């Protein structure tokens, strides 16, 4: 098993393509977007099924990559998150096939 980094970005659904472009341009080999159902932040709750505008929907983007690319990606995500709401974390993971990342 090999050491890699895992980025987890929680961001507005409307902005997820912006985030995706950052991952792609920083050379991350892939990412996966999960829909969120509900959430809480800044004192406010939201829920997908009770907001007809869907404008508060959030998604979680997971992306696995090597340290260098993850660092590069984080710099650009910092700029994106300066504008958008959302939360980003990085953690250590082990992977099977190191050449994929």
């Amino acid at each position, binding site marked *: 098993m090999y050491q890699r980094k895992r980025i987890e970005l929680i961001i*507005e*659904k*409307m*902005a997820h*393509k*912006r*985030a*995706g*472009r*950052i991952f792609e*341009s920083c050379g991350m080999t892939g990412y996966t977007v999960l829909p969120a159902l509900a959430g809480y932040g800044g004192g*406010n*709750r*939201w*829920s*997908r*099924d*009770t*907001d*007809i*505008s*869907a*404008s*508060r929907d959030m998604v979680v983007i997971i992306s696995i990559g090597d340290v260098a690319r993850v660092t590069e990606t984080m710099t*650009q*995500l910092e*700029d*994106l998150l*300066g*504008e*958008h*709401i959302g939360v980003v974390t990085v953690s250590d993971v082990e992977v099977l096939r190191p050449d994929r990342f």
Partner: protein
Amino acid sequence: MDVAISTLLSPIILFFALGMGAALLRSQMSVPEAFAKGLALYLMMAIGLKGGVEMSKNPLTVEVMLVLLAGVVLSFIVPAISYFFLRVTTKLDQTNAAATAAHYGSISIVTFVAATEAVRMSGLDSSGHMVAVAALMETPAIVTALFLANRGAKRETPVAGSERGELIREVALNASIVVLVGALIIGWIAGEEGTARVEPFFVGLFQGVLCLFLLDMGLSAGRGLRQGWRELSAATIGFGLYMPLVSAALAAIVVMMLGMDTGDGALLITLAASASYIAVPAAMRLALPKAKPSIYLTLSLGVTFPFNVTLGIPIYIYLAGLMSGAGG
């Protein structure tokens, strides 16, 4: 007044009230997002087709063109007025005021549909091209609002990950514009005969689907109100109630100037008075992410929408009657 009462007691409004009541009583019920979005698509296809079929019966006149143009102009102007009122009477900052203003300049297609029903129930007629007016009025407001929001300080570089033209694409080609305009053109091309076989679906079911959709809108509006009202000052809530009337007055002048008949006039006034709760909120997440949905959505969906579908529409029909009498 009879019309007002029978409008208020129509199943459509009653289901809206049911949803709002359930939400205020904190019922956990909900309409799944995917299902509600499917119903919204259906409603827009149905409205577009109907408008297109009606347009196919009459030639496009200069009068019609003028109404389309008037709609666009109203959508450009109303946000400026809204912004002014918000900045003067409430404590909303530039961004939130601009984002809210965009909602009031744009339109609510469900309010439009409710007005079409009320117009029909009053024994008046309305024209197919009013659907085109509705589609055209969705977007211009956003342009004005972005201009207002970005006056003064501005980032010089675009935010990381953004793409040239993404906002324009998002806004000008959002689902409701694509489907409304697309279905309008399809109805126009296919005509009454060509659409006969889809009529049981798009015409027969329309009222019923609207009930289901308004139940969901009631739930959203009620929940929004319950959670968001604390963020709204009295002045802001007040804005949600008088601003429709201000826009209506403005539109009423247009109705008189263009000599529109009562039915179409009532619809134009309703469009001006209505506020967006789907297309503009989505655009704002991209364009002005710092603006708070708990302000603009609560106001548009929780305050203005209920006002319009209950008290507003009868007023707008009455106003249109006065104006078309005055003009013609």
